[in-house]
């Protein structure tokens, strides 16, 4: 890691009072990058896309895909409308970082969206915000109104001839509407059923037109890259997964919260230094690194594990949304897993069979184990069911439901064995 995290100054949510106000944001250099891009001859849509691509800005919504590369998939403009859908649905358990941007630094996200809009010749940006975030929706709407009033949104932005609209859309309480194609269906006023891909959103997105979906935090990074250059950006944090990131840390630590640091932080540093250690000095039993769908790591296997895609892959998990859940030695992993499975069972859209019925099968079997009625073969059954679900559905929710089951059982099997009776027969 090239930057010393202790001296790192937050970039996504800088410690500037009242930064959510447009005047304060402008006074601190806000919207200058946008103006530069729109008015100087040095920038073209291609150059912006290439800079973001070179910065290797990896999506903060879960999959970690290079944002610039994703933008480059958009077909050539044909005069028809093109869209960005900004994903602020933020419903994955353990994840609560986009709302910090809505509250404390909405304009950086708006500026990033406009730059992205310029780069892809976008007509309108739809900002899809989790329905339960009522107050954040209101706060963010105010920021959008202010940006319109100052001419950063609407017609002829900064006298550049570039037009862009931004619409705020409230979700209605379904986790699945955070999945990008389901989000588009929802925006179109339909039931939130994920679409079968291909066609991909860049080919056929909102209302059949080219669309790019990015996470809120992803887009909030764009002004930083455009202001300071891709080289500067790649020097922050982990080499293959650079940049600042909002770590949403919850669980049995002394100071849970959202912390901004470079990527590639040691998990142990985040727990012990950033969050002030474990509550009551207890030992770490498990860490979910990036939202409930990412496989949990054992507390005794955290040595040297860092919060970036490569290190976490090696350790057997994923970066996800960097929504970390830290659990101490008193945690019962059977209860934890049941709670997670309950969530995915409840949130499955029900479109495809393995997910619709498989998630229920998983949860019901876990309830049986939780109630002390399980047998060892139920554990084998659960793993078997995961094989029947993984990779066989329309969207990744089913994988997200199966992975925690597979890895919690394989990594914390002793917790499960304690709860179950020995089977007389093997699994059919």
């Amino acid at each position: 890691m090239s930057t010393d995290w202790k001296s790192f100054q937050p970039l996504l949510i800088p410690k500037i009072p009242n930064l959510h106000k447009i005047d304060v944001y402008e006074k601190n250099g806000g919207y200058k990058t946008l103006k530069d891009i729109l008015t100087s001859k040095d920038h073209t849509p291609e150059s912006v896309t290439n800079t973001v691509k070179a910065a290797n800005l990896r999506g903060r919504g879960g999959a970690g895909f290079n944002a610039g590369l994703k933008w480059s998939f958009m077909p050539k403009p044909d005069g028809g409308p093109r869209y960005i859908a900004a994903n602020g649905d933020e419903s994955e358990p353990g994840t609560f970082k986009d709302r910090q941007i809505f509250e404390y630094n909405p304009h950086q996200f708006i500026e990033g969206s406009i730059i992205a809009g310029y780069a892809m010749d976008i007509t309108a940006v739809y900002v899809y915000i989790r329905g339960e975030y009522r107050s954040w929706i209101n706060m963010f709407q105010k920021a959008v109104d202010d940006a319109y009033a100052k001419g950063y949104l609407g017609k002829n932005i900064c006298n550049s001839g570039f037009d862009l609209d931004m619409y705020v859309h409230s979700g209605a309480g379904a986790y699945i509407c955070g999945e990008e194609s389901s989000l588009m269906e929802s925006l179109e006023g339909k039931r939130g059923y994920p679409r079968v891909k291909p066609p991909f959103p860049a080919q056929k997105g909102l209302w059949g037109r080219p669309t790019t979906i990015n996470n809120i935090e992803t887009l909030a990074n764009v002004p930083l890259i455009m202001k300071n250059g891709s080289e500067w950006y790649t020097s922050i944090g982990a080499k293959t997964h650079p940049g600042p990131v909002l770590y949403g840390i919850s669980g049995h630590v002394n100071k849970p919260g959202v912390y901004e640091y470079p990527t590639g932080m040691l998990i142990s540093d985040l727990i012990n230094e950033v969050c002030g250690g474990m509550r009551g000095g207890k030992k770490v039993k498990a860490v979910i690194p990036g939202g409930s769908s990412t496989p949990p790591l054992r507390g005794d296997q955290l040595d040297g594990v860092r919060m970036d895609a490569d290190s976490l892959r090696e350790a057997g998990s994923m970066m996800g949304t960097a929504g970390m859940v830290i659990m101490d030695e008193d945690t019962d992993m059977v209860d934890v897993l049941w709670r997670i499975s309950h969530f995915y069972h409840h949130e499955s859209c029900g479109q495809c069979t393995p997910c619709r019925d498989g998630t229920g099968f998983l949860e019901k079997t876990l309830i049986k184990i939780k109630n002390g009625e399980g047998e060892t073969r139920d554990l084998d059954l659960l793993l078997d069911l995961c094989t029947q679900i993984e990779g066989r559905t329309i969207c990744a929710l089913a994988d997200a439901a199966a992975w925690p089951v597979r890895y919690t059982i394989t990594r914390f099997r002793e917790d499960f064995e304690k709860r179950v009776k020995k089977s007389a027969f093997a699994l059919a």
Partner: protein
Amino acid sequence: MPEIFIDDKRYEFEGSPVLLQFLLDVGLDHPFFCYHPSLSIPANCRQCYVEVGTPVPNRETGDYELDENGERVIRFFPKLMPACKMEASDGMVVKTHRSSELVKRGHKDVLEFILMNHPLDCPICDQAGECPLQIQTYKYGPEGSRFEHKKVHKPKRIKLGPRVILDAERCINCTRCVRFTEEISQTHQLAIISRGDKNYPATAPGREFDDPYSLNTVDICPVGALTSSDFRFKARVWEMNQTPSIDVTNGKGANIDIWTRDNLVMRITPRFNPNVNDYWMPDFGRDDYRRMNENRISRPEVKVDDTRIKSSWHNAVLTFNEYLSGVNNKEILGIGSAFSSVEDNYALNKLLNRIGVSELVFTPNIEEGSGDGFLISDDKYPNTNGCRLLGLKEMNPAGLNKAISAASVKVVVMMEDDLVGRSVVTAEDLKDKKVIYFGSNNNETSKLADLVVPITCSAEHTASYVNVDGRIQRTIPAKETLYTNRKLNLEMSVGRLDRYATKYDNWSSDDNRIDCVPAWEFIENAAEQSGQPFNFADARDVFEDLSKSIDAFSGITYERMDDELGVVIAGSEKQKVTSA
């Protein structure tokens, strides 16, 4: 021609067919639920998995990459793929359950999930016997269940609309019904509500599923979730015989199957014809089974001293000839019917022509604006174009009324058409005239007739009809009359019980056989009685005769109608049905 390799066997194909459809078309059975050839493809049931690989093109040479043995390098998708979402492409390699354990396991896995929340009520479910879930579970499903928990409970016996009932627990969420209302009938009346395993289709609150095509969802529902409120619990599929026929309730002539048991028509379902009705038919056409069973005229009736009495067929023939020969031929008016077949109108016309009566007249039954441009036409009768092509004289209702009421007319011979019920003529208009009525059902007109000749309905005879688009199609008898026998008439279909059971299991009752004959047969008998037979032994003879004497029908045969799914008669496709 592009080639594809399925389970190590080579096939050729054209275009870019849906892989699942291609498998089915070349006769490889493959499980699926949500796919339907006429609907969009949601790939949601995940039942149709295959393993798919494609050859790797070499960018420079344009050929496919080869391995060290000179075999094509095939890059397989890392996951099981739904065959309904894949398009066949040149060089594609496909493994089905026949050659891949993984695919076999995939099919079994999905069925295990579908069945875990599906009620085990096949013994009382209407779909049993024709249920894709039941059939595919036998073929591809797991042997037992590992699911030891409570099933999800959902509402049962929901009246979605006047004709369709939903059992939400049986629903497997394939969305076929929803897609039908979105894409085919376009009423958008159904949507899936709730989420996850609580999902089921429903109407908007306070709204009814009264789509005029609603019963098609019952046909395409791959389980017993949607049932017809009229048909449910009436018959098991294996007790019925299924006969291909034509819907005669409107001018479109949707292709149908008539399902009979014990000589009663139990239900009518659409039969695939891409040129006419695809897989669909309007709901009211299905209700036509009542007309085939109920209120039938059985045995001839004659009026003696103002009372109508049943008569023998011999007496009816004598009476018929007596009426016709008792007056001057100018005093006879023959009325054809766009409700009746080409054969029956032709035979009557031929007979009357021979005794010097001019062409039959007829008036179409058109309700302007009542059609929907889809499968419901403005024309309420199945054979208006047939009458025109036969050269019958088309009149509007007022014209026909005038022709009938004319004092010069003493005898009126009517082919089945309820002119009194349709208010074309009144009882007053027919007073003092001898009325001969050929009909299969009692109605306002038959009530007034002096001679009623009971004739077969469309479920009992072989006959052809020309639809609003000029397509001639034919029916096949589905139901026995007193004089026909399904064992002797090889065209009549046989059911499972006909083939495999004892005679006591099936068709045990003679109650529902109607004492009637096709109109042409009665006319032949009358001609023969007067000493000049036409020598029509069956409907085929009548049709051959007319195809020889009328140019429009020349070259058309029953075989062509069967093989070509109906034949468009040259010139008539442009003919627009008008009320003139």
